[in-house]
């Protein structure tokens, strides 16, 4: 892909229709460097956004991670203000013309902006792609999905950041997370056409399976048995491979989750003392609430005893009555009533044998006695009542005391609960969001994730071992199968095709393995060449070489052979990333220059003088097109002078402010540069 021209209408700061033509090697002068110069806020990143928006329809750049979607506007603000007057939506667009493999493409994306009351709304509209082939025929594609496929085939979305990037952020490629690395590896494979090889291997695997299934249906005897075994092993191998892929994904997801937790835990560190205080307060609160519950239960059990106090006077009154009777000897009676009745009604004589006859003074005296005493049952009952009432009277004071104590303890407990609740509320206010998970919960979740990862790791080992066993069993059976084919002269077309598919599958796997190894090694070699050229003297003394890992991530080795990536500076990381990109481009283009632009926003921000000088000197030779979006502080007379010396500088544009929210693009002659730029101060 070589960018030829970009046209923008009411996009970001670029009001009205404005355009830029890029210098490219395809043009007769062979110059491939374009510099777009502007102070901060003039729209350099807006231009970068325009390219990414045109190609992929993406509104956000990787540097917008912390920006809310709602806050990011692409339609020009001044034009939007006009809609308030006219009420029509603003039609903003970006049109990008580029060449790829000698064919021309024009992609145009429209974005509509309108105010709905006071809310600003931006809505993607039509997208079209015109493709002019080498024979001069032009095709127009309107289906967004088809356009997406075509663009991704030209420059995979996953590797776009290797070619269209913010110079200051490019070093992030060396810090990519596991999941990003996977995506990047996918993109790089696509760029290097390694994915085509993977697809071919998969297709052969399917063909092999189909042929073997067909063959096993027709085969007989020992040969059929071996075929059946191999088919089963093949099936198992595929299942195990799928499981291994799933395990990798699960592991990656767990890693993402773990990282999120780690970020949250970092935040928690700042409020850990408050969390501890809240936890203590909550524990105390729980204990106080339990105590209050216990006190209420105890109160429930004391109600009956307390009720006795309501009839204290009755209890006292009856107790005194029985007590007096007791003291007078009326209860229990001195003579039992049943004995007097027996003397009067049955014996008619006294214990001393004296007769008791009706009307005699003895009988009258005994009847008087009889009327005075109660019956035995009632007396016993009264005595029992006396004992019970005596007991009630005895603990009356105790029960009063207990009730008072219970009520007081409950009041104190409630007061403590109220205080603790207020304390918790106050801590929550200080923390900010009381509904957030506690650090302890997060730690627990993290522990669970780590446990799960250990389990997954164990499963991965087991699955790998199982897969190895299956592969080895499959390999063991292969010669037997061939021998039987030979012995039985089994040479029908189907078996020959199955054998051929098997051999090709093996050969392709071998090719894949060697090819990827070679590619990685070549990328590393090329990256090291560029790295040595671009690095300053001190860096060359410390850093030995770049290594490309299996997932195409990078490592750097110091002069003592130790991994050193974590210790290098931001500038060195930037140089390392650019070296890798240049190497990638070279390997992908089979040792010529890859038809890809290097579109760099703020290219020199973090670079030292020598790094800048080297980059300006060598980079135009590494790539097909270099587009620099530079500020006045990083692109000064000296940088311009180095660039002119290289004789690859073709176009120069200046972004000028025409008032708030409006920038115009002005093309300038390279010869005028010296009058526009600042002197370099204190650098040599």
């Amino acid at each position, binding site marked *: 892909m070589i960018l030829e021209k970009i046209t923008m209408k009411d996009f970001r700061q670029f009001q009205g229709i404005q355009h830029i033509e890029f210098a490219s090697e395809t043009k007769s002068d062979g110059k491939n460097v374009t510099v777009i110069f502007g102070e901060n806020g003039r729209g350099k990143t807006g231009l970068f956004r325009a390219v990414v928006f045109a190609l992929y329809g993406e509104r956000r750049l990787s540097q917008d991670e912390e920006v809310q979607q709602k806050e990011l506007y692409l339609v020009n603000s001044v034009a939007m203000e006009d809609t308030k007057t006219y009420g029509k939506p603003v039609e903003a667009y970006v049109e990008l013309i580029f060449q790829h493999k000698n064919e021309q493409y024009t992609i145009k994306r429209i974005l509509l902006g309108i105010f709905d009351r006071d809310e600003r709304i931006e809505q993607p509209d039509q997208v079209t792609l015109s493709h002019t082939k080498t024979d001069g025929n032009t095709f127009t594609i309107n289906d967004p999905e088809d356009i997406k496929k075509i663009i991704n085939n030209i420059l995979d979305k996953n590797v776009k950041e290797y070619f269209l990037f913010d110079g200051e952020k490019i070093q992030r490629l060396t810090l990519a997370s596991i999941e990003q690395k996977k995506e990047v590896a996918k993109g790089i494979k696509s760029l290097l056409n390694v994915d085509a090889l993977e697809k071919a291997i998969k297709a052969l695997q399917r063909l092999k399976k189909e042929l073997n299934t067909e063959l096993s249906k027709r085969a007989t005897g020992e040969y059929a048995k071996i075929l059946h075994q191999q088919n089963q092993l093949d099936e198992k191998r595929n299942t195990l491979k799928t499981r291994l892929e799933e395990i990798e994904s699960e592991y990656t997801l767990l890693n993402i989750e773990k990282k999120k937790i780690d970020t949250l835990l970092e935040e928690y560190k700042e409020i850990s003392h408050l969390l501890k205080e809240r936890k203590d307060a909550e524990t105390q609160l729980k204990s106080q609430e339990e105590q209050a519950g216990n006190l209420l239960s105890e109160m*429930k059990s004391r*109600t009956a005893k*307390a009720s006795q106090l309501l009839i204290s006077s009755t209890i006292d009154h*009856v107790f005194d*009555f029985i007590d007096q009777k007791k003291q007078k000897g009326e209860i229990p009676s001195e003579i039992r009533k049943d004995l007097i009745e027996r003397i009067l009604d049955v014996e008619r004589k006294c214990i001393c044998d004296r007769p008791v006859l009706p009307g005699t003074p003895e009988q009258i005296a005994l009847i008087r006695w009889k009327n005075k005493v109660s019956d035995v049952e009632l007396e016993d009952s009264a005595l029992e*009542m006396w004992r019970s009432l005596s007991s*009630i009277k005895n603990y009356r004071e105790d029960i009063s005391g207990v009730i008072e104590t219970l009520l007081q303890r409950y009041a104190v407990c409630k007061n403590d609960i109220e205080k603790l609740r207020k304390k918790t509320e106050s801590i929550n206010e200080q923390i900010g969001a009381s509904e957030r998970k506690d650090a302890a919960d997060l730690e627990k979740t993290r522990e669970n994730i780590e446990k799960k990862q250990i389990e997954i790791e164990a499963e991965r080992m087991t699955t790998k071992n199982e897969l190895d066993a299956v592969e080895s069993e499959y390999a063991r059976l292969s010669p037997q199968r061939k021998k039987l084919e030979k012995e039985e002269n089994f040479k029908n077309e189907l078996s020959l095709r199955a054998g051929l598919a098997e051999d090709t599958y093996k050969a392709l796997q071998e090719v894949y393995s060697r090819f990827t190894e070679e590619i990685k090694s070549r990328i590393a070699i090329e990256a090291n060449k560029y790295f040595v050229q671009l690095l300053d003297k001190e860096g060359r003394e410390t850093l030995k070489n770049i290594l490309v890992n299996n997932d195409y991530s990078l490592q750097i080795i110091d002069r003592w052979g130790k991994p050193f990536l974590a210790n290098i500076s931001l500038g060195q990381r930037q140089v390392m990333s650019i070296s890798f990109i240049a190497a990638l481009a070279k390997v992908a283009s089979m040792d010529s220059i890859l038809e890809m632009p290097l579109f760099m926003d703020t290219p020199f921000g973090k670079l030292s003088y020598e790094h800048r000088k080297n980059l300006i000197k060598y980079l135009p030779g590494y790539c097909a097109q270099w587009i620099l979006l530079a500020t006045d502080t990083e692109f000064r007379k000296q940088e311009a002078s180095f660039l002119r010396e290289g004789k690859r500088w073709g176009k120069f544009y200046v972004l000028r402010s025409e008032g708030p929210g409006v920038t115009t693009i002005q093309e300038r002659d390279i010869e005028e540069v010296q009058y526009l730029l600042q002197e370099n101060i204190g650098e040599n």
Partner: protein
Amino acid sequence: MNMSGDIRVKTDKKYRNLYNDLRNLAVGDMHELFFLCVCLGYRAKKMKPLDSNGEERFWSRTITPEEYACYYAIMLEKNSMDLSSTRDDKLVIAEMEKYANGGIEILLKDFLNEYCSADYKLDSAYSKELPKALLYFIREQF
């Protein structure tokens, strides 16, 4: 003290919900709640016969000796200390049922009005602290 255990103690049918709710939320056992109502009723000398003979609520065997002693004491005091008034437990309990029925009306009027609905059902959401409130209420009556 016979303390018969085979008598079915009755309360007014319309207070069924109230007895059940108070038993669950504020008191503990039905005989204890009945005792409280008797004490309140007798203290205020308020007796109220049960509507259509009332509804059986619990067995007399759950009444404690102390509660029985208090019931006999009430009977004695009420009947000019005639010990024979405590002879028939059925009669004693029947008298107590009337005092309890009077007592629950006092509870309703003086204490439960803010916790209770028109159909004499307690609102459990507001009744968490009922044991405490009831104890306060009893204490205030001393």
